[in-house]
């Protein structure tokens, strides 16, 4: 077993020291030991209850050089950290829906709330936040934004990046900073939503977000088709995507199909929605474009969709998110030898190895996938690595030199003390 590499900071405080220092600010009862996967992310967990408390914690961390990181369900942070930070900041007590205006179709929410909670709050107005990360109930809004989670619906609704219209975060010196606002169209000031999106906790602690929400379609259905080969599956997917405004379009390899309870080698699932007339019309088109397809209506379609959305790679030795121009994806996946669940219209796929693999094979597979993604002007990010691979397997690709220099300047400007989730983002940021 390889061990975790040491953090760059010199003396690592003990849990008791952190609890004493931070507990003096927010109260000892707000500091607790990590639970379950949090242990790989942080030595101690603080649970502040207000923006001001987060700000005080950040100031204390800067003063004492205590490394900190936001922790939602700790799924991402426990993966990307090589060694735990001293202090995880959980917003479990900051999970309130701040404002929901169904007629304006906007919703402001504290970052500790889950995507599932948001969608239960908007359901009665027949609206939703159309982002679908794996296990929406276990994905906090902070994590949705900071770790760029997305799911099948990105084909029709985009990602959190497209829906986020306002943000508040606690940055350097405990400054509470906001960008954007609460209106659906707004170009006042620099776009701090984009800067914080996908920043993996390295620039500050997101405490509140405002989103556009969308109407829930009246009817939902899905077409399901099994294929003997990947080529036929991707051909069918392309025909459907060219012809119809699908809600989602997933292509599953045999292992992924099996995990979703489907008994076919390669599977295409195309979601479509709208009024009764629109759904019927789309099904008619699909039947002609993919004669093998079977119609799944309402709950049956929803159940399969949820299984694909929630695909769990925790037993796989390795899983990664690859992205490239959409038309390149089929060939790249077929060459890769990997199992996959592909958002086919988007050029984005989760690739993984099924079953036991030794480190050498994992290393070879990842470097092959990385090269292939790069050759297609795309990129790759590890979403699951076995703990034994932490020491040698990088989560992120390395950006081009020029872009990386700007990113390092951004990090230095927003986090001069270097306390926000240091050392595990691109280029060692």
């Amino acid at each position: 077993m390889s061990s975790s590499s040491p953090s760059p900071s010199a003396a690592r405080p003990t849990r008791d020291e952190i609890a004493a220092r931070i507990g003096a600010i927010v109260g000892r009862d707000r500091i607790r030991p990590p639970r379950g996967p949090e242990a790989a992310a942080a030595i101690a967990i603080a649970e502040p209850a207000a923006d001001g408390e987060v700000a005080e914690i950040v100031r204390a961390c800067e003063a004492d050089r205590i490394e900190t990181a936001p922790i939602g369900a700790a799924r991402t942070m426990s993966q990307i950290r090589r060694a735990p930070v001293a202090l995880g900041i959980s917003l479990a007590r900051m999970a309130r829906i701040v404002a929901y205006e169904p007629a304006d179709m906007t919703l402001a929410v504290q970052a500790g709330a889950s995507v599932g909670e948001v969608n239960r709050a908007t359901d009665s107005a027949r609206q939703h936040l159309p982002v679908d990360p794996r296990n929406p109930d276990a994905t906090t809004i902070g994590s949705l934004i900071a770790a760029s989670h997305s799911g099948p619906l990105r084909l029709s609704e985009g990602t959190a990046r497209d829906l986020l219209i306002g943000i508040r975060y606690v940055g350097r010196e405990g400054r509470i900073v906001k960008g954007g606002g609460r209106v659906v169209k707004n170009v006042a000031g620099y776009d701090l939503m984009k800067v914080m999106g996908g920043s993996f906790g390295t620039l500050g602690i997101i405490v509140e977000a405002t989103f556009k929400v969308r109407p829930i379609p009246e009817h939902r259905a899905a077409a399901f088709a099994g294929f003997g080969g990947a080529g036929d599956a991707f051909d069918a997917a392309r025909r459907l995507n060219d012809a119809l405004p699908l809600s989602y379009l997933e292509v599953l390899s045999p292992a992924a199909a099996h995990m979703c309870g489907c008994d076919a080698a390669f599977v295409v699932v195309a979601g479509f929605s709208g009024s009764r007339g629109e759904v019927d019309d789309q099904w008619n088109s699909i039947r002609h474009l993919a004669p093998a397809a079977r119609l799944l209506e309402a709950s049956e379609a929803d159940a399969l969709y949820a299984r694909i959305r929630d695909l769990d790679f925790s037993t796989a030795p390795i899983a990664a998110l690859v992205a490239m121009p959409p038309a390149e994806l089929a060939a790249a996946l077929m060459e890769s030898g990997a199992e996959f669940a592909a958002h086919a219209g988007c050029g984005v796929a989760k690739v993984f190895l099924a079953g036991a693999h030794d480190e050498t094979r994992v290393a070879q597979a990842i470097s092959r996938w990385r090269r292939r993604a790069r050759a297609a002007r795309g990129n790759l990010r590890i979403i699951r690595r076995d703990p034994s691979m932490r020491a040698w397997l990088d989560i992120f690709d390395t950006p081009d030199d020029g872009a990386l220099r700007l990113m390092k300047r951004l990090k230095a400007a927003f986090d001069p003390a270097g306390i926000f989730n240091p050392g595990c983002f691109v280029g060692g940021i």
Partner: protein
Amino acid sequence: MHDVNPPLPDASFDRSLARELEAIVGPDGIVSRPSELRVYECDGWTIEKNAPDLLVMPRTTEQVSAVLKALWHRGVAFVPRGAGTGLSGGALPVNAPVMICTSRMNRIVAIDLPNRRVEVESGVVNLHVTNAVKNDRFFYAPDPSSQQACTIGGNIAENSGGPHTLKYGVTTNHVLGLTLVLPDGEVVELGGPAEERCGYDLVGAVVGAEGTAGIVTRAILRIVREPEDHRTMLAVFADVEAATRAVSSIIASGIVPGAIEMMDQLIIRAVEEAFHVGLPGDAGAVLIIELDGLSAGLDEYVSRVIAIARDAGASEVRIARNETERAGLWKARKRAFGAVGRLAPNYATQDGVVPRTRLPDILRAITEVSRRHGLAIGNVFHAGDGNIHPIVLYDERDPRQVRAAVEAGREILAACVEMGGSLTGEHGIGVEKQAEMPLLFSPEDLIAMTELRHVFDPMERSNPNKVIPRPGSCVEVAAPRRQVPV
């Protein structure tokens, strides 16, 4: 490498600098005669004017890089310009002697239909992107009213919108990759044709930065499949209140139209006199509503929208029967600003946002501002997303009216912010709204934004004195000289 202490500008820089830049871009790429530079003294924000000392028109990324290096070493600031159709003074030189115009970088570099991407140079005109792909049933979604003239580079600077962004999103939702020349001349590639990024979203930071991050020379754009079919309607109302009620009800019903645009009585009359498209001259307000999507669903949605509009008080709802009628309606909408030119010697177009449900309140507030200042104000705007465009009519020969026009604009913006809205939905802050930024943002917010800007432009050489207000260096409101058509 960055020159940490670049030399201060030399008073005699102009002639030797002009020679140096001419060697880079060629004699036809330089304008230095004051009479010719007058053309570039302002953009669509015509209340302030200031011509550059030198205009440079590079043709390639390499030339832009060489030009910026030359300026960097002399400590000279520059202002980027596309077509000059911006409405907030983003292309107004303020302590920036050199203007860099991207209009000669106008090649569509690659059209990649299977991947739904188009790569363009930044001087390409917005509409030319759609024209290049429309035979294959694709379009480029952001469609500002100036789309026949404005450039992709300008759209990127301002994060431009347009009527169809209600459904399809604004510029930032459609730009995936950029080639950016930093103020010191370094060329960086940001993002790429994939939907996911590697590292921070620097593309998202540059889009909407109003030209303060350097010069964008290329962009990878996403194009969108044309909807199978569309229906364009004109709904006629006795007043704007009834029309805004209809807007809220349509949205609340779960229908997402391609666009919902409103024109009030003053605009309707101006447009009708100018273009004779058959708008009812006695209407208090009209809505142009476009539904798009699958043919199969459209007629049902049309019936629902008609019912909602009638419930809200529409006296008439017409459906465009063919492409000519549809084009007529959109021509009326997109040329409304031009038509207004007949009503008064000058006009200033404002751009504010309120939550959709506050549209009746902001329109009442605008009526009150109009009455108080004795200036006519017309309204033509993107009702679906609460993005208002009051057009303040004035006569620049009367200094009182000029002051009143500026004041009226400020009061309207303050009312927008008061109602939970924003200072600008799509035109940008530029110089026009710098003074209002503190209404929306705290000092901490503005510091963070400045720090972000400095990541790209630590010396503030690219479009200085824009966006962020600078205490103690208030921009003078110059005496206006003439009106430039928008």
